[in-house]
């Protein structure tokens, strides 16, 4: 663990900010995460939202004590970083990227990479309102993008999941990447299965060590660790998980009920 100075900050909304560091490791892939340490506060996992020209970026939404402290950091502050950890998305042609809420974050770096490789892909992003969808310009510029918001403030009104089926059929897409709330992921997997498509999904559990030893992030079924064999799971891996949609383990390791 080492601390690094924040070199820049970008405000997406009052609650969502991107924080920039110089790139601290040579190989960082979309879907991987860093453990971010706020000295004196805590350490939590955050997806990499971009790596570009020697600069890396994480994007944070203030939802609780830690993320509130994290969005309050200033340029020049020293922040601890350990990583990159975990598995990453692999590259496929004709993919649909389905992101919900802060699940949009890892898809941003994935989209940049897919575009760099010259792959065709499309994007479907949903959130509660317009303000909760960062990187709108990048996404729209890089690929055909559909926005869905619960309040209709951007794009269609409703839930992303309502549009997956249609998107796949319309555009002859053959692979799905998805990240976001678990309820959404369950629907994505169902749709993919119905359409006979392969997919990679990224999903979250409470994490502590990030390096596969504390056991905190293990999911039931095959007993895989989401910090090590995840957070990005292939279809095969995802199908070994038996705890979809049930309450997660908290800091004690006990399931919330």
């Amino acid at each position, binding site marked *: *663990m*080492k*601390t*690094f*100075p924040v070199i820049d900050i970008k405000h997406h909304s009052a609650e969502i900010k991107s924080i920039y560091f110089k790139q601290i490791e040579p190989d960082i892939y979309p879907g991987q995460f860093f*453990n971010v*340490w706020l*000295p*004196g*506060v*805590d*350490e*939590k996992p955050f997806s990499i939202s971009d790596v570009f020209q020697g600069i890396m970026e994480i994007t944070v939404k203030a939802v609780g004590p830690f993320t509130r402290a994290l969005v309050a950091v200033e340029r020049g502050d*020293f922040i*601890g970083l*350990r990583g990159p950890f975990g598995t990453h998305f692999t590259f496929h042609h004709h993919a649909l990227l389905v992101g919900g809420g802060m699940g949009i974050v890892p898809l941003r770096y994935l989209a940049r990479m897919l575009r760099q490789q010259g792959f065709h892909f499309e994007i479907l992003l949903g959130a509660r309102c317009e303000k909760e969808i960062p990187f709108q310009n990048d996404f729209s510029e890089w690929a055909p993008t559909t926005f869905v918001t619960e309040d209709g403030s951007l794009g269609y009104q409703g839930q992303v999941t309502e549009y997956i089926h249609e998107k796949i059929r319309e555009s002859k897409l053959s692979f799905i990447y998805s990240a976001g709330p678990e309820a959404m992921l369950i629907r994505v997997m169902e749709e993919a299965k119905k359409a006979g498509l392969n997919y990679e999904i990224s999903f979250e559990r409470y994490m*502590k*060590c990030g*390096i*596969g*030893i*504390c*056991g*905190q992030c*293990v*999911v*039931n*079924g*095959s*007993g*895989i*660790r989401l910090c*090590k064999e995840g957070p990005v799971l292939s279809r095969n891996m995802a199908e070994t998980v038996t705890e979809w949609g049930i309450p997660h*383990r*908290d*800091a*004690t*390791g*006990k*399931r919330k009920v």
Partner: protein
Amino acid sequence: MSDLLETLFLSKIYQSPLVLASGVLGLTADSMRRVLEAGAGAVTTKSFGLEPRKGHACPVILPYHSGLLNAVGLSNPGVDEMVKEIKKLHQESKGGIFASVFGKTPEDFGEVTKKACEATPDLIEVNVSCPNVASEFGAPFGADEFSVANITRIVKKAAGDVPISIKLTIHCPSIEKMARVCEENGADALTAINTVGPGMLIDTGVMKPILANKVGGVSGPAIFPLALKAVWEICANSSLPIIATGGVRTADEALQMIMAGATMVSIGSGIYYKDIEIFTHINQDLTAWMEARHIHSLETIRGAALE
């Protein structure tokens, strides 16, 4: 797996002398089953107490160049949850299951043991020596012969037919004397060693200790010689079977532990360095070593370095 590695420990035969150490991947049946499938003869659960505990804020685990620091702070889901996981694991696997227990008071140790035994683990491992909770519970029990004797008697009584092992720390006036104290008070086995220190690391950017708990126990490669020496010293002075723990990552290191007198060899931090397959690989390398030397049982080399 070849049966060269079959190991008799407290009247039960294990497929391998290798054990998953407490605190690493020991929270759920599914993750422990994965470790058994990778080749461990037995797994030890994360230490649990009567009530769920959140443990310390993060970072709780910190790799450094020679090992790991941890101050997990005995976070655990509590005995009721763990009993369910142990029962589930029993149904799904034939491998050994060691339940690691701790308590805030000697009486707690007894109560949690009694409850844990409902799941009929193969062993109750008694964590008297965790350095991470010292500030809350006072100095670790493991440093004090009187406390250890007392806890040993209480747990032994509570465990009924289930054998018990006391997990020792090097941070006591004399580990060989502590081993004798455990033996005299009814321990069936000993586990040595728990983490060393604690130690500390400071970030020079923010000029603060990195672990939220400031200090954490040292494990992994750094402590291997300290663990080996402790095992060797205990084996020279006690007839109890030993679960050797501390810094093991290779078959050669596992053999050193066995030559120092250990019966079982447990691995925690090794998973950070070589992942879960460490059990598969050490089993293979041990088997190859034995075959090359025409050794048919680890029994023949156990304690060889004691003279």
